[in-house]
Structure formats: structure tokens, C-alpha cells
């Protein structure tokens, strides 16, 4: 769907002017444009007219100024792993691909923070930090860019303990819609004086400005880490164990759910031999004694819900293999049906309603006859159903969409939300209106005050 408020179109003159800024780091070939206008989902691709690859904040500023003068859309692009059509160039325009802004600018070990250019990915950052004893915890399944993770307010498997991007972004450098550069706070952990402008950009999906640098909070690698997998006789027992764990305030570092279908998928994909039962994956961080104590508490809860055993992964390699398998869950699902693709739902409900929501959803899946494993960040009340399907088959797509609509309705009825971590893009705009009503007009007023010409990623989050 095109954005209502019209933008101007790119012409040769603009392309030449952009070349004056970035030289050869620019492309208008179909392959490059195509790659930048689509995501891995069923959303219709909308390629931009030109892609530029800047290397510095000043270049981004000049590019945006040029587009602002001519009222041309600007679409920031990290690694393109977002799932709701976030990077689609609905009205054409200039895609700013930040992958060449991939420098770790400064690790501040004493203050436990780091400043990176927006194109650095989460894995690249952790590799860089390897010898410092520090790490950055937020880990969405994909190896996304930190700029993109900031822009989508991403979270991951450790959010239950360390928070999401929202809690871990300390400061940003942003190029505003008129090309001006701001630093949202002067340094480090100081929240900006005045309104919380840092968090205004966290989750803004490229609609308010281009994030060029991110200062992130780091954590010390814990003295002790242990991980375990724990199969349950049924789905409800697994979910109830996670709820009880959270309600008791046990500080688990990770608590992830996979149903038996998902277990089969990861066994196949990652060559593992885990039992084909609903399973919780745990990780504990802390002092030696603290980890033992947490693990004992959780084992006692699990036993009440008839868990058969805890299988400990003590070696670092085994632990890494376990979590890599979890991160690959989405791709693993494709192994269940060669040639098919995945479509991921993303509801989140208050923790006390989680069992009810998951069990009803599972019943719905079974009745609809979809192939749809469940995987969840259950400590946060958030879970995904990955519908494995043929995107070319209109009937299957329609059934999957109808299923998702029922799922969202169910979650909203439980005081939940349509998206716990993937965001709105343009794929969930209708759901946003259903969930928030008047807040959408407040968001629109905010968008108009900050980007009056509607050039920043137009048609996402709110339509003008």
C-alpha cells in the first residue's frame, strides 16, 4: 500500500548529486535495489530508486539534506532482517544502507559502555569485546545491525534478565529529517537533559531520523554460567514452570520454550538429539553459589510440573551449540518442509495469562491444520508461532493471515499486544490502530512535528 502523503520522485539529477557525496558507493542496479526493498516475509517487495553506502555521519547528513531539499523519501537500512515490511520503499526514494558504517568507535571498559557505528552487527560487537571480559546481551535471532536493533527496539533470549534495546541504549547520534546532526546525550549513561529523546528514537523504525552511532551498555561476563534443557510431558506444564519461575523472582538469564514440533525442527537442522517433547531451555548467570542456588530453585519448580530431567550443558561449546540452535529456530522450521518459507507471529501477554494464550493458540493451530511450531521468550510473556508455508499458495497465505488475526485478537483480549519485538513496519499498522486507537493520532502529531515533510521512511508506524 502506497503512503497517502505524496513524496517527490528520484531523478538523474539527484543521483548525480548523491554521487558527489559518496562517489562509487551508490547503486541503481536491479539486483541491489531488489535486495533492499524486500524482507524474508510474504510482504510485497518495494525497491528504492537508489541505494547509497555512506561511511560517516557527515555523509549521511549531506545525503538527508539533499533529500530534504527535494522532498525525496529516505529509508535507512541495517541488515534487512525486519519482518513487517519495515524497509519497503513504498514511495520509492533513497535507501541508506549503513553496513559500511561498521566501526567499533570506543570501548569504555571502566564505565562499561561502548560506542559503535550503526552498521556494526551484534555478533561483530561481541567478537570485538572478546578480550575485555564484557559482553552485549541483546540477541535477536538474526545477526542484525545495532542501528537496526535500536530502530526496531529489538529484544532477545536474555531480555528476561538484561532487558531489551530500550534498556540498553544510552545515547545516540542521529541525523534528523532536515539533515542536522544531534547527539541525544553528551556521553555515557547520562540520560539527556529534558525529554527522553534517546528512547524516542529507540523503536522509531527509521521514521524520525537516521541513527548513525549508538552508545550501548555492556555487562561483565558472569563468573559462572550454566545451561540446561528440560523436557515436559505437555505444553501447559512447561509454560506453567516458566510463569512460576518469573513470579518467584528467580533471576534466570534465559528461559525459552520450544514445542515438540520445534524440537524436531532444530534436531534436524542442527543435528541434535533432544527429546521430542515441549521443552524449556534455561541459562543461569552469576556467582558460582548464585548459579547453583537458582538452578536448584528452578529444578524444584519444574519437578512440581512433572519435568522428567535436567540435561546440563556444562562445556562452553555445547552451550553455544544449544543457543545457536535456538537462534536458528526460524530457519530450522524450513527443514520441516523443503521449499517452504516461514511467517512469524509475535504476540506478548501478561505472564499470568501465558499458559491460557499458548494452549488456545495450539488448539487453533491443530484445528486449522497449519504446520506451525511455537517458540517463545516465555519469561517475557512473548512467543512466536512460525507458520511454515508456501508464499505462492494464496489459500495458505489467507489461512495464515486469518490465524494471525485470531491470535492477535486473543492476545488483545488478554490485555496483551500484537507485537512484543518485531514492530509495526507497514504490516501491522491496522493492528496498531486496533490496539491503541487515539494514541495513533498522538504519534502522527509527533511524526509531523519532527518530520513535517514526511520523508523519513514514509508509510511506516503511522500513515499521514
Amino acid at each position: 500500500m502506497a503512503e497517502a502523503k505524496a513524496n517527490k520522485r528520484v531523478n538523474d539529477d539527484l543521483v548525480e548529486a548523491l554521487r558527489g557525496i559518496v562517489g562509487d558507493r551508490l547503486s541503481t542496479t536491479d539486483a541491489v535495489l531488489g535486495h533492499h526493498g524486500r524482507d524474508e516475509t510474504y510482504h510485497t517487495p518495494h525497491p528504492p530508486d537508489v541505494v547509497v553506502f555512506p561511511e560517516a555521519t557527515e555523509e549521511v547528513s549531506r545525503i538527508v539534506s539533499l533529500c530534504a531539499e527535494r522532498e525525496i523519501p529516505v529509508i535507512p537500512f541495517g541488515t534487512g532482517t525486519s519482518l513487517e515490511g519495515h524497509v519497503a520503499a513504498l514511495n520509492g526514494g533513497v535507501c541508506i544502507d549503513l553496513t559500511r558504517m561498521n566501526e567499533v568507535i570506543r570501548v569504555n571498559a571502566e564505565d562499561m559502555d561502548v560506542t559503535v557505528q550503526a552498521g556494526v552487527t551484534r555478533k561483530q560487537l561481541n567478537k570485538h569485546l572478546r578480550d575485555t571480559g564484557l559482553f552485549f546481551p541483546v540477541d535477536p535471532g538474526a545477526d542484525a545491525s545495532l542501528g537496526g536493533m535500536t530502530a526496531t527496539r529489538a529484544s532477545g533470549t536474555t531480555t528476561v534478565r538484561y532487558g531489551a534495546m530500550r534498556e540498553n541504549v544510552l545515547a545516540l547520534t542521529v541525523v534528523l529529517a532536515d539533515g542536522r546532526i544531534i547527539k541525544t546525550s553528551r556521553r555515557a549513561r547520562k540520560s539527556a537533559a529534558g525529554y527522553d529523546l534517546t528512547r524516542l528514537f529507540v523503536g522509531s523504525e527509521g521514521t524520525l531520523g537516521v541513527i548513525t552511532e549508538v552508545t550501548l551498555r555492556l555487562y561483565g561476563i558472569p563468573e559462572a554460567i550454566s545451561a540446561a534443557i528440560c523436557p515436559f510431558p505437555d505444553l501447559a506444564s512447561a509454560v506453567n514452570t516458566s510463569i512460576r519461575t518469573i513470579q518467584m523472582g528467580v533471576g534466570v538469564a534465559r528461559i525459552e520454550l520450544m514445542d515438540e514440533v520445534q524440537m524436531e525442527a532444530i534436531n534436524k537442522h542442527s543435528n541434535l538429539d533432544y527429546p521430542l517433547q515441549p521443552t524449556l531451555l534455561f541459562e543461569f548467570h552469576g556467582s558460582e553459589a548464585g548459579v547453583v542456588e537458582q538452578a536448584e530453585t528452578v529444578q524444584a519448580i519444574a519437578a512440581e510440573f512433572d519435568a522428567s530431567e535436567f540435561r546440563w550443558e556444562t562445556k562452553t561449546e555445547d552451550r553455544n551449540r544449544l543457543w545457536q540452535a535456538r537462534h536458528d529456530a526460524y530457519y530450522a522450521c524450513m527443514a520441516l518442509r523443503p521449499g517452504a518459507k516461514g511467517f512469524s507471529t509475535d504476540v506478548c501477554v501478561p505472564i499470568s495469562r501465558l499458559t491460557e494464550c499458548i494452549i488456545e493458540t495450539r488448539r487453533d493451530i491443530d484445528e486449522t491444520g497449519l504446520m506451525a511450531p511455537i517458540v517463545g521468550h516465555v519469561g517475557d510473556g512473548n512467543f512466536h508461532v512460525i507458520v511454515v508455508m508456501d508464499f505462492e499458495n494464496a489459500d495458505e497465505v489467507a489461512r495464515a493471515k486469518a490465524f494471525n488475526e485470531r491470535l492477535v485478537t486473543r492476545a488483545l483480549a488478554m490485555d496483551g499486544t500484537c507485537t512484543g519485538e518485531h514492530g509495526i513496519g507497514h504490516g501491522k499498522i491496522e493492528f496498531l490502530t486496533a490496539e491503541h486507537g487515539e494514541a495513533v493520532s498522538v504519534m502522527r502529531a509527533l511524526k509531523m512535528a519532527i518530520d513535517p515533510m514526511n520523508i523519513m521512511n514514509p508509510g511506516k508506524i503511522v500513515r499521514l
Partner: protein
Amino acid sequence: MTKTLKPETAEQVLDAIKWAAGEGMPLAVRGQGSKDGFGRAVDIPHCLDLTGLSGIKAYEPSELYMTALAATPVAEIEAALRQNNQQMSFEPPNMGILYGGANGESEGSIGGAIGCNLAGPRRIQAGAARDHFLGFNAVSGRGEVFKSGGTVVKNVTGFDLSKLLAGSFGTLAVMTDVTFKVMPAAEKTRTVLILGADDAGAMVAMAASLGSANEVSAAAHLPEAAAALSGVSYVADAGQAVTAVRVEGPGPSVEHRCRALTALLKEFGEIEELHSENSALLWREIRDVRLFDAIDNQIWRLSVPPAAGANVVASLRSDIGGRVFYDWGGGLIWLSMGTLSDAGHETVRAAVADTGGHATLIRADADVRQRVPVFEPQATVLKDLSARVKQGFDPNGVLNPGRMVEGE
């Protein structure tokens, strides 16, 4: 002519704001009024008194959140939570005492605590008020009813309006109810005290504690004069500076961590330990800024990198005098000093600016708070962006104009 509007329902808040927006009539937005002295001094004749919107709306301990009407007293919320062994982990301070209120229970409303984004000693572990704030219903300065967030801990439904409203001092919208996280209270609390460390040594000791695996939930340093004012005898009678490090959690784990901390910290001075009750009192005194004696002194709140805290204080001590104590591992400095007509703002801000930090004038007479920027002045582009945010919510400038920035 002063007029007070006292709505009893969200609809009446809407009517009041529509009226104000229509008339172009600014409103002073007020919860319990415990923090009237916080922010720029403004003279707004009409007051929107929210005390009619009080009471807990939804609280089921197993849900781990609470919804309360905006002007519900923090004390009432804390009492309800205590009955279920739960707490607000951000430890909202009771600013009422600092501003000359009574001494006992918490004053102030939950809306005010969130509106000022206040957080106590546990901030370094658990985050600020905004990190615990899940959602709200509100009326914008345009006279629109809207809500944001909800009861879940994670959502990415568009712009994060909750984060904007936390710390907006009522200048963007009037919240009618708020939903926030509640957590199980710790079974046990202990505080490890180091006696006699100087400021610089204390900063190193606090950093070592916070960097250890002992899950420290608060770290403060009280120079001798501040320590002497504590109601906890171990602290007051020490006759020297006291550095305090708090651990919380299940019993055996707390004891284990205290032992580990004692081993880690004994090189910095003699070690003492406070048990639950004394710990609670000490951290309340720190949270509520009760460790200064002169009740009419001016008070600044300085945010600095923890490693720089002692240096900032050393330079201020020679330039301006006054007394201090440190919270947040040295990252937060409370400074109390004799009255100056300009509150020494240039000197204070210069000392902090070198570190990348910022300073807020927390207590001073109204005429001083009219002349001197209470909040750290912003760079031009940021100021312009903030003005646009204000414009987006409150284009007629009817909500608390001037409370944060002169003329806005």
C-alpha cells in the same frame, strides 16, 4: 484570579484541558504537590488538581503489575505491595521531606514519581522509574484522550510514548492512570559498611563491589558529616566516613555474598554489617536525601561518571564549599550549600561539564529558580527537537508551561 479545577474522572480531566486549550489558559498540573519546588518556578494562576483521581485500580500480585489512578499516594501503593511481599524496584524517593513536608510516610503521588522520573538507590541495578513504567491513559495538551503501552513487559507498538512522558514534568500530557511493574521484595537485605575510606578510595571500593559477581543493589558513600546525621547508630557513631554496599535476595545467597564482599573490601577500611531493619532505614535516608542538616540550604543533584565523582567534589569543595554525599556508586552526588543568589550555577555546571555529566538545581527559593536554569541547558538542536516534541503534544502550551524550559 486563581482557579482550581479538581476533576474526579478522566472525562473531567478531558473537559478541563479542552477548556484550557480553547481559552489558551495555562494549567499548573499537580498531583499531591510534594514536588512543587522541583523544576523552574512558574507562576500559573490556574491549577489542575488531580487529587480526585486516586486509588488502586488493578492489582493482582501474580500479574506482577499494578494500575493506579495518577494521584494515588505512593504510600498507599507501597502499603498494598508490602502486604504481598512486593515492591516497586525503582524505589521512588519521598521528595516531600526535602521540600519541607512532614517527616513520616512517603508523600507524593505515583504520577508525580513517574512524571519526574525519580528513582532511588536501586537505580544502578534496576533502572529508573521509566524502566518500570508499562503504560498509561492520558489527555494530551490538544485535548485528546490516548493510551500507550499496556500491561506487558515488552511491546514495540510504535513510538515509545511512555518513555517520553516519564520525566516530562507534566508538560506533554496529563496522565490519568498509570501501569507499572511490581516485583517480589527481597527476602533478606544486608549492608556491608566500610569505615573511614576517603572519597577517592570509596569510589574505587564501590566500583569493585559493583563490578563483582555479588549482585550489589546499591552503593553509597557518606563523608563523615553526612554519616553523623544518620538515624542508624552504627553509621552515626562511626565518627568517620561510611561507605555502604547493599545486597538483597534469598537468605543463604545474601550471606554468601556478604562474606565475599567483606573479603573484597577489607583492604579499604574496617568492615561492619547492617541487618534488615537498619539497612532499610539507612537506604531510606539516602533515597530521600535526609543526610543534610541545614533545612534552608540550596541543593544540587549532580550526575557524573562514577569514576569522576571524587574529583568533581574536590574541585567544588575549594570553589564553593558545601557538603555532599554520593549514591549510585558515585554517579549521583547530592550537594548542599549555603544560599547564593545565583546558586553558584556557573561554577557547579562547569565542574560537572568537564566530565560529560549534568546538574539539576533541586532546592532553592522560587526567585532563584526563576533566574537560574534548574535543568542542564540543552544544545540548540536538541532544544529545538524538544520544542517540536512539546509542539506535537501540546501546541497551545497549556500544560505546565515553563516548568522545564523558560518560555515553553
